[in-house]
Each structure stands twice: as structure tokens, then as C-alpha cells.
């Protein structure tokens, strides 16, 4: 809502020394956020005066006709002689009153006026157009003023209102009343404690009879309809300058007098109006729901298919307007309209909101209707409009008019007088609530401590005690709410929250950079991951309105985002990169039912909540890692070490270690990993073996699809599943007896996984084993084709004694024996 200060001052007795900026900060704190104060005309300097065209000489021989004019500007030019000005406009005649910028003047936009030679003549000044003066947009010619508007030679800046401060207010959805001068004026008057002159407070004479027939088909669509006519309207009558200027300052484009008047009254009172050409209306005007299949071409020349939920204004020939949104082209008021019918109605806001959304049409009218307008101002507004048409367009107001009204019970709110203070935490003096509520137009009845409040018809947003509290607190000043420090009852972070932080720190400490990639993916990403057609990761949550049509899906794995980010870093000159991401993936559930919308006047039932949860996708938290290039750099210490599948597996091990769970690892074939270099990662939870993720080198085709360097590796684990395998640490008893170390070298078939041998050794070694660690793998001639030698260090220790060499040897032999039995491993001779 754009509010010109001079217009506002017509309704509020604001002290003269209150500037637009002062008012802007007061209003902003009080909930009418002034986004900008436009100081129009501050870049404009005189002399700009009224002049009378004395003589026009038509110049020919140029590309366009040019006029050489002599304009009387009185003594404003110092000489008293007519000013000689070359002018390209043609919409004026000798004797017309015009606006002249004399040399030395400066117009908006830094346009300096001087005397110069043009079209072969000296031109000293300019006859101004509305656009040049910043009045409104008009490219049809110069401003020709009505006789008597000003005296020749007088300053025109003040008389034309070229300087004006305009507040631009961003009105929140609850404050529909503030989309009118009247509504803003009321808040301003209350804030400054000054008198308000309500422009809607006018007496409307009783109708002398029924006007144009009108009806409301369903009171649920509208509860008030006013039709009021004016005859003998002169469609050629111009809109007066003051109205055009206010419309322009209010952000509305002047069109024609009939339209301008309806817009003016809308800005003034907040009531959108429609001016019909009555000659084009057939029979009764009805507010009704659109019929199935009904169509209407609206003013913007769009043929619209109406929905049965749309409200229309119809005559007997059919729908003529989408109510509260936009009028129809056919009944548009035009250059020949002599009889105007002004329609004012109060429509159901929800219908208008839906229609506006459905037709993707947000108009000045719909913005007001959907936020809630005054439900009683329609007759005043229609009357005001026809009276303006009479005054400015020579029309005669019809004393008969139509007023259809379905009355409804007024809302009353019961609230304790001290409620606002209890909400704010401030002890307001007695009577504070009543004072402010009355200032905004409420009727308040006090019964001891209990107030019964009837909000005014222009405040449909006031329905609850807290709405009233907000009104009191904002006028008392939000800035006067004190600050009290307090203490809650929290018990700190959960173990899951602490684990996540620890995982993040660990991965960062081991060289990984955290990224937060978008969860949006497309089929192409899933193809790039080499997922089979039936891979469950292809079953994705799909967005109805994705930002990018190529990426309508939500991720089922963290890898696409990580791989793209990796490629971006490589492209920016960082080929040696390790990244990680911790975040949710979205796995569609099996439920097919739409998530229900239980009523909100009570808590949802357990069953309703269960249905909501069943409709939600499973959203586990994953950790993903990608690596490429050198994980250890080359330097004076030696060559670089490239990241491999093993670093990816190690990242998973590090996470498991932070979580305090043991990872079991075995070979797997799983996209998008290299089929020979992929590890499946398991944990044990409640005795069950649970797959938590995969790690290894990426498949060459995936690398190609994501434009990644060779041998890049990746890991992804489900942190929730890992957490499920956590158990409380029981402190070990630390034996102080010496360790007995035994190394064994075993020869096995090259295909036997080390993990199996290691596990067999550990199991076979029994309780005395402290640790088993692989320290060498050898293949070559000495062990024979297809064989490998693996060397392990076994450490034994007892809790209660120093182990003898025999005991340690026996445990080692048992370990080797079981490894031999399980894997065919033999001690290397």
C-alpha cells in the first residue's frame, strides 16, 4: 500500500512537524512495515510556472511536425515578454494553460532545462508533459490544465503537488484494513493520539426504490451486494489532475474517469469496485458460483475456463466477471458508456484466495478481498463512486439503488483485561486494553475484569484474545517489552547428536571437506550411478513442482550430490579432494494413502498420527565420502599416495570407530562401485548382521558419467543403522602382565580374503589373544602361482600371569590350525 502524506493528512490531524520518516519508523514498529519512503520531486527545482500559449507557429521541413510557441509566463522570466519555446507535442491550442519549465529548472532524473537552438529556432525552456514532471505516465503530449487551475507566471510546483512523500507499506496478510488510506489513517491517528476523520463516515440517503435488479445466489459466496447507477455520464470527461496524481502515487495507472474513480475509492476505503456499462448488461446481476464448463474472457484478453468454485458476477447472458479478481472484457466500461452501474460486494475471502491462485491472477481487488475487507462499507463505497462520477463526469446519481444483504452475527471476543500484559510480560496500567481497542474501532464492554469485545467490521482478523493482545502491545510499543533471562530444563545433547558432531570432526581431521549438496536428482544421475532398472534406489520421492524439470526426484543416496561437488572442485583446479556429506536420504514407503489433514481444534489421534507417519518416506541419515587424486601429497619426504578403494573403506572404519561399533567387511558387487573393488559393510545389532553401506573404488562408467578422475573412490553408510549397533562400553581390565608376541606367515590361495583368515586366527587363538594384525602380503615366485603369503602379528596376554612360551605357542598353533581348516592356509615353510 502506497500512502501519500498529503492525502493521509486529510484524514489525520498529524502534527505538522511529523516527517514521513518519523511516521515510517513509528508505523514499522507498530506492524505496518514501511519498506521505503519515496520522496517524490526532491530532485526537481524551479522555475516551473503556469503559462498560457499565445501563439503557435507550425514549423515544417522536419521529420515530424514541430511547433514554435510563444508562451506568456507573466513576469516569471524576469522580462515579462512571452517565452519562446520549441515543442514537439500537438495536443494543445493557442490560449491553453500549460506548465512551463524555464531555463535553470531541473526536472526529475537530472533533466536540466536551458536555452538552446533547436529546429532552427532558439528555445528557452520547455512545455512539460505529465511524465516529465513525474506526475504520471503519459506519452500523448503535454499537460493542458483546466481553466482556472492556476495563474499565469505562478509557481506550479506546489499547485501541481510535484513534491510528495509516499510511504510504501508492506501489508502483512492479517492486516487487510491497511490496504486503504482509511485503515492506515486509523492506525496513525491512534499512534499519535490525534483525531481521525473517517472518509467512510458519510450518511447515505435511503434508497427511493430498487435499482438495477441484483441477487446473491448463495450467502456462502457473498453476504452483501450493492448496485448503484449513474446516468448521463460523459465518457469523454477527463480525470482531474489531483486524482490522477494520487492514483499514480498510489501505484495505480490512470485509465479513464469511470475506472479511475473506482480505483480511487478502492485506495480510499479499501473496497474494490467494479464499474459496468449498464447498457451491456442483460437483466439481473447475480453473484453465483461459476457453472461447469463456463468460460469468460477477462480484461487482460485471456480466455479463462471457470471452476465451479469460482464466484462470478453474472447477468442473464452469463458470467461477466470473476468476482473479486478481474472483470470481463465484454461489459468493460468504454468510450461510449453513458450509464454506469457501480457494483460493490463483500465476497467470501477464501473463495477469492482460491480463485486468485487457480487463475494465477493477483489483482489489487483480490489482494484486498482475500485479506479481508470491511464487510459493511459497500454502500458507502458505491455511493462515493457514483457521486464522484456525478461531480467529475456530469452524471446524475440514481436515488434508487440495490442493496442485498445477508446479515450475520457479529464476532465477540471475551478476554481478561490483564491478558495483554500477561502475554507481554508488562504490567500495563488499568484501562490500557480498553483504550487501545476502542482506538482501533472495537466496541468494548467491561464486566469487572472480563471484557467483551466486538471488533469493527473492517477488522475480520480479530478473532482471538491474542489478536487483541497484539493490538494493545503494538500500540504500547513492542520496544518496551523488557528482556528477562531464564533457565530451561534441558539435559544436553542426545548421544545421537553428539555422535554426528564427532563423526564430522573425525572426517574433517582425516582430510575430508564437508559439503551440503542439494537433494534434487534426476534419472540421469541414477543412470550415471549404473543402477539397474529394478534397483530399489530408483524408487524415489518425486516433486510435483521441481525447480528444474531434469531433477524432479529426491535423493535416495548421497552420492550424486557428492560426485557433482567433487567434479566441480576438480574443475576448479583441485584434483586432490576428499569430501563428505552427512544428511538425510528419502526412501518412499509402501503406503499409498494421502497423508490426512486431521482437524486442528484438537490433537490428532494416535491413529491419525500413524496414518501421517505411514505416508511419510523413510528418511535415514547417511554419511557419504568421495575421494580422488592424492590423499597424501608428494613433497620433499617422497612421492604422493593416491586415494584408493582402501581409503574409502577406511573412512567407514573411522566412523564405526567413533560410533564404537565393529565393522565387518566382505566383497560385494554393488553399483556404482567397481565390481572387483567394492566392500559391503556390516555391523552386528542385537545379534543380527546388518548391512550399513558400501565402500570402494567407483565404477569406470560412473566416473565417466560424472566427469570424475580415474580411480576415484566413494563410501556411503547409514548412520542410523550404525547407531543401532552401539552398545554401552564396559571398561576393560588392563592386565599388567607382559605380552607374548608371535608372528605367523601363512600361504593361501590368492582368492582367500584376508578378512576370513584374520577372523579364523582370532577365533582359533582363544581368550589369550590380545590382538591380531596383518603386517604383510606377498605374492611371487617364492609362494607359487595363484598363491599368496600373508603375515600376521599375534599378541597374547593373560590377566593373571606371565604367559610361558609354551602357552603362547599353543595358542598360536590353535589359531593357525583353525585358519588352515577354514581357509586352507598353511604355515609358510
Amino acid at each position, binding site marked *: 500500500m502506497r500512502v501519500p502524506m498529503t492525502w493521509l493528512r486529510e484524514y489525520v490531524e498529524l502534527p505538522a512537524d511529523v516527517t514521513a520518516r518519523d511516521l515510517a519508523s513509528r508505523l514499522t514498529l507498530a506492524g505496518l512495515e514501511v519498506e521505503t519512503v519515496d520522496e517524490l520531486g526532491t530532485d526537481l527545482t524551479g522555475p516551473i510556472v503556469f503559462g498560457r500559449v499565445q501563439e503557435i507557429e507550425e514549423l515544417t521541413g522536419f521529420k515530424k511536425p514541430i511547433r514554435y510557441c510563444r508562451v506568456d509566463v507573466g513576469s516569471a522570466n524576469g522580462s515579462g515578454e512571452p517565452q519562446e519555446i520549441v515543442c514537439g507535442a500537438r495536443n494543445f491550442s493557442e490560449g491553453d494553460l500549460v506548465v512551463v519549465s524555464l531555463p535553470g529548472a531541473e526536472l526529475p532524473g537530472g533533466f536540466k532545462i536551458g536555452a538552446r537552438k533547436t529546429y532552427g529556432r532558439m528555445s528557452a525552456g520547455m512545455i512539460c508533459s505529465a511524465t516529465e514532471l513525474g506526475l504520471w505516465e503519459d506519452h500523448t503530449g503535454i499537460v493542458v490544465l483546466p481553466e482556472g487551475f492556476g495563474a499565469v507566471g505562478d509557481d506550479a510546483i506546489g499547485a501541481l503537488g510535484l513534491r510528495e512523500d509516499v510511504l510504501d507499506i508492506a501489508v502483512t*496478510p492479517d*492486516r487487510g484494513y491497511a490496504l486503504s488510506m482509511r485503515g492506515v489513517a486509523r492506525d496513525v491517528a491512534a499512534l499519535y493520539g490525534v483525531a481521525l476523520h473517517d472518509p467512510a463516515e458519510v450518511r447515505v440517503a435511503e434508497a427511493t426504490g430498487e435499482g438495477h435488479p441484483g441477487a446473491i445466489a448463495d450467502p456462502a459466496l457473498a453476504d452483501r451486494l450493492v448496485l448503484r447507477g449513474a446516468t448521463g455520464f460523459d465518457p469523454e470527461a477527463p480525470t482531474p489532475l489531483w486524482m490522477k496524481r494520487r492514483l499514480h502515487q498510489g501505484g495505480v495507472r490512470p485509465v479513464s474517469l469511470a475506472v479511475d474513480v473506482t480505483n480511487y475509492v478502492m485506495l480510499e476505503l479499501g473496497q474494490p469496485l467494479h464499474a459496468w456499462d449498464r447498457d451491456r448488461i442483460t437483466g439481473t446481476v447475480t453473484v453465483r458460483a461459476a457453472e461447469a464448463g463456463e468460460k469468460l474472457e477477462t480484461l487482460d484478453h485471456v480466455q479463462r475456463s471457470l471452476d465451479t468454485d469460482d464466484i462470478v458476477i453474472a447477468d442473464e447472458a452469463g458470467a461477466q466477471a470473476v468476482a473479486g479478481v478481474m472483470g470481463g472484457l465484454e461489459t468493460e466500461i468504454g468510450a461510449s458508456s453513458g450509464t454506469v452501474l457501480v457494483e460493490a460486494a463483500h465476497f467470501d475471502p*477464501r473463495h477469492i484466495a482460491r480463485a486468485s491462485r487457480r487463475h494465477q491472477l493477483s489483482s489489487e481487488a483480490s489482494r484486498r478481498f482475500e485479506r479481508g475487507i470491511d464487510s459493511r462499507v459497500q454502500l458507502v463505497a458505491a455511493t462515493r463512486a457514483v457521486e464522484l462520477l456525478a461531480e467529475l463526469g456530469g452524471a446524475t446519481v440514481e436515488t434508487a439503488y440495490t442493496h442485498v444483504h445477508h446479515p450475520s452475527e457479529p464476532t465477540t471476543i471475551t478476554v481478561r483485561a490483564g491478558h495483554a500484559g500477561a502475554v507481554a510480560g508488562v504490567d500495563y496500567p488499568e484501562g490500557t486494553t480498553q483504550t487501545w481497542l476502542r482506538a482501533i474501532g472495537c466496541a468494548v464492554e467491561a464486566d469487572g475484569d472480563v471484557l467483551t469485545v466486538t471488533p469493527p467490521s473492517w477488522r475480520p482478523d480479530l478473532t*482471538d484474545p*491474542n489478536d487483541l493482545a497484539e493490538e494493545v502491545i503494538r500500540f504500547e510499543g513492542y520496544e518496551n517489552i523488557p528482556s528477562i533471562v531464564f533457565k530451561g530444563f534441558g539435559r544436553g545433547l542426545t548421544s545421537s547428536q553428539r555422535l554426528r558432531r564427532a563423526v564430522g570432526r573425525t572426517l574433517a581431521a582425516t582430510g575430508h571437506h*564437508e559439503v551440503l549438496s542439494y537433494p534434487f536428482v534426476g534419472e540421469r544421475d541414477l543412470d550415471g550411478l549404473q543402477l539397474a532398472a529394478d534397483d530399489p534406489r530408483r524408487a524415489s520421492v518425486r516433486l510435483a513442482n521441481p525447480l528444474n524439470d531434469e531433477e524432479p526426484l529426491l535423493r535416495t543416496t548421497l552420492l550424486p550430490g557428492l560426485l557433482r561437488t567433487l567434479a566441480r572442485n576438480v574443475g576448479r583446479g583441485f584434483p586432490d579432494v576428499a*569430501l563428505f556429506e552427512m544428511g538425510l536420504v528419502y526412501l518412499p514407503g509402501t503406503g499409498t494413502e494421502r497423508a490426512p489433514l486431521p482437524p486442528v481444534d484438537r490433537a490428532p489421534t494416535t491413529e491419525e498420527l500413524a496414518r501421517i507417519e505411514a505416508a511419510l*518416506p523413510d528418511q535415514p541419515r547417511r554419511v557419504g565420502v568421495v575421494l580422488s587424486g592424492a590423499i597424501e601429497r608428494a*613433497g620433499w619426504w617422497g612421492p604422493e599416495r593416491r586415494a584408493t578403494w582402501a581409503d574409502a573403506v577406511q573412512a567407514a572404519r573411522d566412523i564405526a570407530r567413533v560410533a564404537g561399533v565393529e565393522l565387518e567387511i566382505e566383497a560385494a558387487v554393488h553399483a556404482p562401485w567397481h565390481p572387483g573393488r567394492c566392500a559391503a559393510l556390516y555391523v552386528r545389532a542385537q545379534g543380527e548382521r546388518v548391512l550399513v553401506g558400501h565402500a570402494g573404488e567407483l565404477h569406470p562408467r560412473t566416473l565417466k558419467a560424472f566427469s570424475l578422475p580415474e580411480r576415484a573412490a566413494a563410501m556411503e553408510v547409514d548412520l542410523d543403522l550404525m547407531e543401532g549397533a552401539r552398545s554401552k562400553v564396559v571398561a576393560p581390565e588392563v592386565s599388567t602382565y607382559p605380552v607374548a608376541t608371535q608372528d605367523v606367515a601363512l600361504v593361501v590361495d590368492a582368492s582367500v580374503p584376508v578378512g576370513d583368515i584374520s577372523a579364523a586366527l582370532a577365533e582359533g587363538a582363544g581368550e589369550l589373544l590380545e590382538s591380531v594384525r596383518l603386517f604383510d602380503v606377498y605374492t611371487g615366485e617364492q609362494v607359487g602361482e595363484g598363491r599368496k603369503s600373508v603375515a600376521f602379528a599375534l599378541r597374547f596376554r593373560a590377566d593373571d600371569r606371565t604367559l610361558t612360551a609354551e602357552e603362547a605357542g599353543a595358542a598360536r598353533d590353535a589359531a593357525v590350525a583353525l585358519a588352515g581348516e577354514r581357509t586352507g592356509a598353511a604355515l609358510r615353510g
Partner: protein
Amino acid sequence: MSAPNNSFDPVEVTSLHPDEVARMREEALAAIEAAADLAELKEVRLAHAGDRSPLALANREIGALPPAAKADAGKRVGGARRDVGQALKARQGVLEVERDERVLVEERVDVTLPWDRTPTGARHPLITIAERMADVFVGMGFEIAEGPEVEAEWFNFDALNFLPDHPARTMQDTFFVEGPEGGESGLVMRTHTSPVQVRSLLTRELPVYVVVPGKTFRTDELDATHSPVFHQLEGLVVDKGITMAHLRGAIDTFVESFFGEALRTRFRASYFPFTEPSAEVDMECFVCRGASVGDPEAPCRTCSSEGWIEIGGCGVVNPRVLTAAGVDPEVYSGWAFGLGVERTLMFAHGVRDMRDMVEGDVRFTSAFGSEI
């Protein structure tokens, strides 16, 4: 069995003769003094203090002496050995110091050589700053609550008093999830962290003091100031006797801990469906502290010379929300706030472009390290 040779005179055992012991001692001490390095000293030790050294051999002879002579000989030999031992120790010390001085100098390295063999990584500053923001409130007795990112419309809108046709429901540019066969799913990507208010009230015991850091989603194209994925920190308190003054206290504590002591905050009346009364929260510009307002000579880039910086929205929990969450608004009241994590990072650390926080460039994260 033979009795000890009582008449044996130690003087008659050559090696125990006082002169001989003195000679051995002198020889040993001279050799020790002459040892030029630790290796030589080791040989000297072997020759003069080892098992087969003259003094050690002499010592063995004592056992054969008559008791009367033992003490005297023992004292003589023991004294000599002790002197040799002390001299060895002293010389060892001297030679070690000499060696250390020489060797340690020889072993000197260039400690300015770089060791960037295994570069460290970094956590994302949006994560670490969100943790720090949350921790300010954890310190005030809040717990951290969480909820799903794909959320039911009921939690994201209805329960928060966004009624089906409320204009606010279209104000937020929501990602809607497609239902089976293109129909409606009743699901959205949460447009704010506020649905966790309702989840917390439904699942936790009262009173509730929680903060909710998390990802949120709106259909904004990525540019310097917008991102379709961003982060909020929601706060919620529901208890008996809770007022806006406590809300202001919580906000003030946050502002002071992030932006500086004694920074003023202000509430501006505003509108959110799930709070009533509602307010926008501004803090005094922590750079110019308002000095740039109306001073074109010294404009402030941080607050655009407004003097105030908007940091979030807040308000008293709308009793309708409490009702939908099964809390009796006649008994309990509360408030909630929402702070922008990106905005906090931008202001606290001078981030100028939203894209830097989105793209995952390692140069950006590196600057922040593992904690913020």
C-alpha cells in the same frame, strides 16, 4: 675340610698390597681421564672396572685372607673401586655432553620445511555455526529437537494455523511431493523448521524448551541471496507463565553471544500464522551501531546504513497451535522464534554470496576449519 689360613698376611698377597692397589687405582684414573670419547671410555671401563680388571681380580683375593685381614684389604680395594667408578661416571657425563653438543648440532634440520603431506579437511561452516547457535540455547537449558525434511502438510501448515485457503500458504513457495499416479500426497518439503514445534509438543513432556536446527526448502532459484535449500534455527518454549519478556531475553542472549555485548535488539509487530502476537527481530548493526544512519559520508555496508539488521521472526505461540498439539492454552503459554543460519553466517563472518555456502568449494570450507 681346612680351616682358614689365619696367619696369612695380606701384604704377602701382591695384588692386595697397598702400593699395588694404589697403583691400579692411579692407572685406572689416568686411563679414564685419557679417554677421548665414549667408545674409548667403554674400553677403559672394561679394562679397569670390568669383571677381569685388576681391581676386580684383587677383590676376589680378599676372600682367601684371614678374617683379621679382610676388613682392611676390603676397605682398601673397595675404596679404589669406588673412586674408579665415580671417575667413570663423571667422565661419562662429560663425554656425553660433548657428544650431545656435537651430534645434536650435526642433526639439525630445517624446521621451516613444509609438512602438508596429509592436508586436513573441514566441516561446513553452516553446520558448525548452527551447532554453535544451538549450543547458546542448550546452555540456557534448551534441548535439540529434530524432525523429517519431507513433512506432512498437516505438520507444516494446518497444525501451525495456516488454514487451507490462507494467503500465507501461497506466500511460501512450497515444494510439493507428488502422490501416487500424479495425485496429491499431502506431503511437502518443509518450508520451515516450525513443524518440529508441533512434533515436540506431541511427543515431549511439558514444559518444553527446544531448539531445532535444520534444513528447509522453498522454490527459490539459487542466486547471491537465495537458495532453494537453506537452514533455520527454531526455538520453542511452552511452560506456565511464559511471556514475551522471556522471548526477548532469549533473543538478547543469542545476539550478545554472536555479535557483541550490549547490542540492542528491537521487536517490530508482524504476522505469522503460528504466533500471535508476532514480531520481526532486528539487532543493532554490530559494525556501525547506528552511526551510519543519515550519514552519507560513512555508509555502512553491513546494514545498508539502516542501523538495524533483521535477524528473524518470533512471537507468542498461537493458542490454536497449542490446541492442535494437544496442549491446553488455558494452562500453558509459550513462544517461538526462527533465526536464519545462512544469515547469521553471512553477518558473523562476512560471507557475501549465498552460492559460496552452497557449492562445496573446498577453499570456502577450509577457511573455517572444524569449529567456528
